């Protein structure tokens, strides 16, 4: 795979939130405003980029057995840097994001990329991977946050856009709204992926566990629609 693909995969095909569904804790918690989304995204991207590069550099030096503590130390270092910098220069944002900045340490996207990519690939690719994943994460966060802020508060980046007669749909600002919106967006993205795949004549890359067919509660449900369709056709 070329460098371009390593960068681009984070944007769509392996988008950390919508495809791989990682890092949901900050995704659900901080996306109450678009500004928060941007802040969280940039912070995570910075950590991801730096940790990926450092881990890639040190990958042959770190013994395999103690790689986890080693990664944690590296990631924690950069998170501390981000925490201190944000506190110093972007104090209101730092306050808004609160505990979720320190919690980047245990963000599974960062650990995941370190383990799955940076520890196996060269510095350039790891850098691109981290950048792509970070930007994909940021875009996703901003997308979710914009919708929540727009509908739930009538603003985007703090600017009122919905007019004075708009009654804010407060549910979206609240935690349940985050879940509902994320679920709906995941479903919609899968739809888009299926449509794209069909057009391109390839199998849609939807993880088995995101498909209703493999759900323990509704196992086999996705077949139900087809069965009904077949029944209809048989009757006609």
């Amino acid at each position, binding site marked *: 795979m070329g460098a371009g693909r390593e960068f681009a995969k984070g944007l769509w095909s392996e988008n950390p939130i919508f495809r791989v569904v990682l890092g949901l804790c900050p995704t659900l918690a901080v996306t109450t405003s678009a500004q928060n989304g941007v802040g969280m995204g940039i912070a995570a991207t910075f950590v991801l980029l730096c940790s990926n590069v450092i881990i890639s550099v040190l990958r042959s030096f770190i013994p395999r*057995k*103690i790689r986890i*503590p080693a990664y944690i*130390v590296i990631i924690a270092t950069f998170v501390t840097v981000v925490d201190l910098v944000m506190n110093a220069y972007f104090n209101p944002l730092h306050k808004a994001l609160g505990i979720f900045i320190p919690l980047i340490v245990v963000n599974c996207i960062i650990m995941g990329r370190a383990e799955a990519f940076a520890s196996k690939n060269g510095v350039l690719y790891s850098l691109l991977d981290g950048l792509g994943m970070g930007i994909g994460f940021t875009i996703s966060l901003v997308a979710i946050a914009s919708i929540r802020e727009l509908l739930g508060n009538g603003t985007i980046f703090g600017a009122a856009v919905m007019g004075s007669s708009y009654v804010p749909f407060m549910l979206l600002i609240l935690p349940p709204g985050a879940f509902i919106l994320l679920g709906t967006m995941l479903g919609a993205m899968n739809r888009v992926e299926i449509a794209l795949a069909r057009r391109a004549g390839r*199998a849609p*890359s939807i*993880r088995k566990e995101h498909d209703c067919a493999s759900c323990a509660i509704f196992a*086999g449900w996705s*077949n139900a629609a*087809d*069965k009904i369709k*077949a*029944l209809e056709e*048989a009757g006609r």
Partner: protein
Amino acid sequence: MVAAIIALSALALVASFGLAMVARAFAVPVDPKVEEIEGALPGANCGGCGLPGCSELARRIAEGRADVDACPVGGESVARSISRIMGVAFAGGGARKTALVFCAGDDETARRRFYYNGVKDCASAALLFGGDKLCGYGCLGLGTCAGVCPFGAIEMSALGLPVIDPSKCTACNKCVLACPKKIIKLVPVSRRVHILCSSHDKGAKVRKACSVGCIACTKCVKEAPEGAIAMQDNLAVASGVPEIPDSVAAVCPMNTIRVVDLGISAPADAAGAAAEGAAS
């Protein structure tokens, strides 16, 4: 700042010492080959090899209890990389296979003997007089095979026959086992000419039931090279060796024998598909 450095260093020292102790005390010898082999397998955990999952197969291969080409899905390329890991020579050659439906009796060509009204599932339909097709051997067309295919390789055609996409089929055998009429079989993708019927009925009965069924006229046996096609209980059956030439399809009066282009014979494609499957 000095405090931070000292604290971190001290902590690191203590932690690494502890880790070293733990590593020594609880060391579990793991054959590194297992991990490597597992990495080489497609990772779909489809069960096509008959084992619970890829890791189990990897363990067995590493222990020498399974062959390097035991994964039916991975095909030659996977077998090759596993043989490299195991350090054994791989002769290659195990031809890639795909599932094929040995029935051409769709809604236009095959007749039905009653209106079936029940569970839309072939095995259930077969409980009632063996299904509604007039031909007792034919495809019931309710898509049970499509439902069990873990790779989405089977789709039902508008005329009610399963269509298997050889590029997606991994020859995992699930559909073969699921079909109550036992009309799906695994065939090498390299084979081009197939006899798409499973009916052992006599010619007259077949003619009444289906316009594309084998009526055992033996024209194909005469046309094909010696030993390529044999009549078994009113049904022409390909033996596989020698290959049936394309010309035989033309002599079949019922259009039962057809040239089926299974498309992919280049192993490179198969490897690509397997790799993509692992990545997604």
